[in-house]
């Protein structure tokens, strides 16, 4: 690969975003378009006894009002299937109320103002039941979880946990809790559906246009050829838009019923109860170790609040099973049904909550043993995957610890509690490990279209949720073809384009870059064939192995060259299309030019990192401010350092939110969310965020995909909350195990 890949590049979609030209899903006004809004339930459990829409229907500008009685039926009831279908329960299909904020009517009007006013006039009589609001209310009804995400065995054990605990000379046994969190991307979820005969175009802000298309076809009995989903720019997602939600289906149905385009926008308050969230949870963690700090036992059990009808909880114990070398381990999950919406994955899924517990406990252990926090982690470093003994395809966690420590100035840290002050504030240093699996890749298609001008258009059906997908696709193609990035144009976000997978779990960059790479190689092969066969080409009858791409030309080793555009123009072609399909399995095999240490499928692949935090705690008021944050990460090849560093900072800020600011507040009497909007559910603001220093440890891992990209979207959220909590302890001697850390806990 040339220098192009990896170096900091500006986002190619940045110019269109800074001018306001970029069109997001709701930035659309179609001829005859009507506006739709939901009315939502104010009770959390029970049934709708009576719904009266007369007054609403008669309100100015109202086109139609749909309730569970009149909303067209889905072709089949949904079945939970992670991550596509988020829940077993489709609202607006029967009279059940399972959570407060559940949509109970869709109001369609000429303007959004008229729709909102009419929504207030829908009259509903409920038969309310006593709801289960929080974990505290629901835990007596908890049951064991069998499958994580509906597919993975939830419980995991190895060795003999009781024996391991007996061998322990020191022990930490504590409970750690997380409140519920909301994604709150700044862009509201919305669907605009417009029918043309039997074809529908759906403008949906989503992490998976193919997923939306698939589920619309499945739930509405539609033909994929008749369903087009478009999402060119997504205004943040973090998991909220990674699942199929039913507002999409109902907007499509209503648009068909009314025979006019319909735009539904979920309000900010409604985002809280219609697009999933991270569940309220409690973790019981026991770690045992010898006096040397070697772990002998870890028991990690989690209790998560779920909905009434779905068995969902994020995999908080997964990191525990594989981060440290520990022979005796026992992890498991219990879920407690509550009258809340179905939780789903939120950025840093599983790892960020689980590592808060584990990395806090490691710190507590280190303190008991008088060991440096980094030292205790090094002593328990897992050199192979402790679950199976399989080798890591690559792991540079030690380098992350070392680099991060250097960046934050870990040696300046006086280990004594409360020994450091600055401007009257107590100063604390803390650290935490971050990790994320390298997820399985999806089959991905990319089309390249070369123009005689030498410009190349890249088309793939994926989406850019802010992670920099547009830029990654462009720079990989530019790099392979040896052309400047300015000569590459990228089109994404349309199911009419070649099929790509969802932007979830950090998969996009790897899938799209791999596919783009393969497509680029394919284009070179086609151009070579054309040139070699053309008597008018300088490369006529050349040996293909001696040809390479450079500067927009096909170049022979002896210096002869033929510009791409020329090659095709001579053949009377204005454009040349190359369609490429990248299959993860074959993608690995394609990298077989490089000798592989580990046979295909026999290694374990994870990305790792380490966060280091310096916090200031006000000695009188208990206020906590993050003064500095530094992180080092090893995630294979980094395609674009600039956008990747931004990703890490963004994840860190979510971690700051977890540690210090964010919490859903639920009224226990009514199980209604008290802080549904952004005025009351606080997320980190400018003033909360210090300069965040980020470094990458580059790894060459030829086992994961042709470019060796691991993906980084989720990685940086984990490790931050424990780094901050550990730093707070260092500053104050107070160990906080219930997030968010509040001033009254430190008075």
């Amino acid at each position, binding site marked *: 690969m040339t220098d192009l890949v990896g170096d900091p590049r500006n986002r190619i979609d940045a110019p269109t975003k800074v001018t306001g030209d970029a069109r997001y899903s709701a930035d659309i006004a179609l001829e005859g378009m009507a506006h739709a809004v939901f009315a939502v339930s104010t009770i959390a459990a029970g049934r709708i006894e009576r719904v009266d829409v007369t007054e609403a229907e008669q309100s100015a500008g109202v086109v139609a009002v749909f309730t569970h009685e009149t909303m067209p039926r889905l072709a089949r009831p949904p079945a939970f299937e992670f991550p596509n279908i988020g829940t077993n329960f489709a609202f607006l299909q029967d009279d059940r109320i399972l959570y407060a904020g559940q949509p109970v009517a869709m109001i369609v009007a000429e303007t959004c103002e008229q729709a909102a006013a009419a929504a207030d006039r829908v009259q509903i009589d409920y038969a309310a039941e006593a709801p289960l609001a929080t974990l505290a209310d629901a835990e007596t009804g908890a049951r064991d979880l069998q499958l994580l995400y509906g597919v993975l065995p939830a419980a995991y054990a190895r060795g003999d946990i009781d024996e391991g605990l007996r061998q322990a000379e020191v022990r930490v046994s504590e409970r750690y809790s997380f409140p519920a969190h909301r994604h709150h991307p700044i862009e509201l979820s919305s669907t605009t559906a417009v029918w043309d005969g039997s074809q529908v175009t759906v403008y949906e802000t989503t992490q998976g246009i193919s997923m939306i298309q698939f589920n619309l076809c499945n739930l509405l009995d539609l033909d994929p050829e008749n369903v087009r989903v478009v999402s060119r720019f997504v205004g943040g997602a973090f998991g909220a838009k990674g699942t199929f939600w039913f507002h999409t289906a109902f907007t499509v149905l209503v648009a068909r019923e009314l025979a006019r385009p319909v735009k539904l926008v979920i309000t900010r308050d409604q985002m809280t109860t219609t697009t999933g969230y991270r569940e309220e949870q409690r973790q019981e963690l026991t770690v045992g170790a010898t006096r040397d700090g070697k772990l002998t036992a870890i028991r990690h059990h989690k209790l998560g609040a779920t909905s009434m009808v779905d068995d969902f909880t994020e995999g908080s114990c997964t990191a525990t099973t594989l981060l440290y070398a520990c022979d005796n381990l026992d992890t498991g999950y219990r879920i407690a049904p509550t009258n809340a919406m179905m939780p789903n994955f939120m950025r840093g899924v599983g790892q960020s909550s689980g590592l808060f517990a584990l990395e806090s406990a490691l710190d507590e252990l280190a303190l008991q043993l008088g060991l440096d926090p980094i030292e205790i982690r090094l002593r328990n470093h897992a050199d192979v995957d402790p679950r199976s003994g399989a080798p890591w395809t690559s792991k540079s966690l030690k380098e992350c610890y070392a680099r991060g420590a250097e960046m934050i100035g870990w040696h300046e840290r006086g280990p004594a509690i409360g020994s450091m002050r600055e401007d009257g504030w107590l100063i604390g240093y803390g650290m935490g490990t971050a990790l994320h699996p390298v997820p399985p890749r999806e089959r991905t298609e990319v089309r390249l279209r070369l123009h005689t001008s030498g410009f190349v258009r890249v088309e793939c059906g994926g989406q850019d949720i802010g992670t920099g997908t547009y830029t990654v696709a462009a720079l990989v193609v530019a790099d392979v073809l040896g052309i400047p990035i300015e000569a590459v144009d990228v089109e994404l976000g349309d199911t009419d384009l070649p099929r790509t997978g969802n932007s979830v779990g950090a998969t996009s960059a790897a899938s799209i870059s791999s596919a783009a790479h393969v497509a680029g190689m394919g284009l070179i092969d086609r151009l070579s064939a054309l040139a070699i066969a053309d008597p008018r080409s300088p490369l006529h009858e050349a040996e293909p192995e001696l040809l390479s791409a450079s500067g927009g030309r096909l170049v022979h080793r002896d210096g002869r060259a033929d510009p791409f555009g020329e090659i095709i123009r001579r053949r009377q072609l204005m454009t040349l299309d190359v369609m490429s399909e990248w299959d993860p399995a074959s993608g690995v095999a394609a990298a077989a030019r490089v000798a592989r240490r580990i046979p295909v499928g026999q290694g374990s692949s994870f990305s790792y990192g380490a966060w280091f935090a310096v916090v200031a705690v006000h000695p009188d008021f208990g206020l906590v401010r993050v003064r500095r944050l530094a992180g080092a990460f090893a995630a294979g090849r980094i395609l674009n350092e600039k956008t990747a560093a931004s990703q890490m900072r963004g994840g860190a800020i979510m971690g700051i939110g977890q540690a210090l*600011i964010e919490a859903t507040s639920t009224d226990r009497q009514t199980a209604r969310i008290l802080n549904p909007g952004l005025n009351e559910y606080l997320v980190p603001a400018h*003033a909360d965020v210090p300069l965040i220093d980020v470094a990458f440890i580059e790894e060459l891992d030829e086992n994961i995909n042709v470019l060796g990209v691991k993906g980084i979207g989720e990685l940086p959220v984990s490790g931050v909350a424990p780094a901050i909590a550990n730093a707070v302890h260092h500053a104050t001697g107070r160990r906080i195990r219930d997030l968010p850390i509040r001033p009254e806990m430190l008075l």
Partner: protein
Amino acid sequence: MQPFELVTPVGITEAVELGRAVDAVYLAGGTNVVDFLRTGAMRASTLVDIDRLPLRGIDFDGQRLRIGALTRMSELAAEPAVRDRYKFIAESLELSASAQLRNMASIGGNLLQRTRCLYFRERNFKCNKRTPGSGCAARDGENRRHAILGGSEACVATHASDLAVALVAADAEVHLHGPSGEWTSLLETFYLEPESTPEIETRIGRGDLIVAVSVPPVPGGERSVYLKLRERASYEFALVSVAASVDLDGALIREARIALGGVATRPWRARETEARLQGVALDDSGVLREAAASAFVDARPLRDNGFKVELGTRAIVAAVRQAGGGA
């Protein structure tokens, strides 16, 4: 929002005539009214747009500050006389809300802003302020942000304005024009505790329009302090706040003015604390602490907000020290 009629009076007299109608609401900056009309916490059939009335402008004659009610928060905060002589007023403003909101919101509107209590804001909760007689869901609910002072069985909603806290410490007066003519009130007593009628928040009568706020000199005003404690480093209402000014005679406190926010149903003047601080040395931590604690003697903590007693006490001590020029 439910439909309303928007009317724009030409002068104050016409405004008052329109404003005295039932279900009429004055609209200045609109940042509070528009938001609460959308959530349904407020209802209005007529919005009387007073924003073009000649009620802007800040006058300082060397003694008294007079602020037109339509002056924007950002304008008042930037006014040199305010920054120099009533520092805690400028600080209370600049620590409020966001720059955009401060450009939009009027002084009059800020003083009349409604509570941020979540049970008030969201309809269908029991809320005596929004729907008299329906009950108070906060008393037995999530009440970490609610009042420990000035509450009643009927309501414990905290007053939200930072500016009002500083103005109450400054002995400000509020000037109104109404159907019964012009009248003036000390701002401190303009605000009412909920008692059994939490829907009545001030002494304002139907149709009364705030036209100005005036502020006498504040001893120690040039060094006065608005200390605002909140979890998010910015753009959040106060957990606990203190407006403090201290006039020194050498090392002794000659006069202190202290008002509290985030802890009471109205901006709370801590007169007991002020009295105890008279003649006390600024570095006498013990007495400072006792004086501060006296502000909370009648505090009635709820399930979640008891920490405000300690936090409030410490905040008063810190604010007094700062206002006296100490650390």
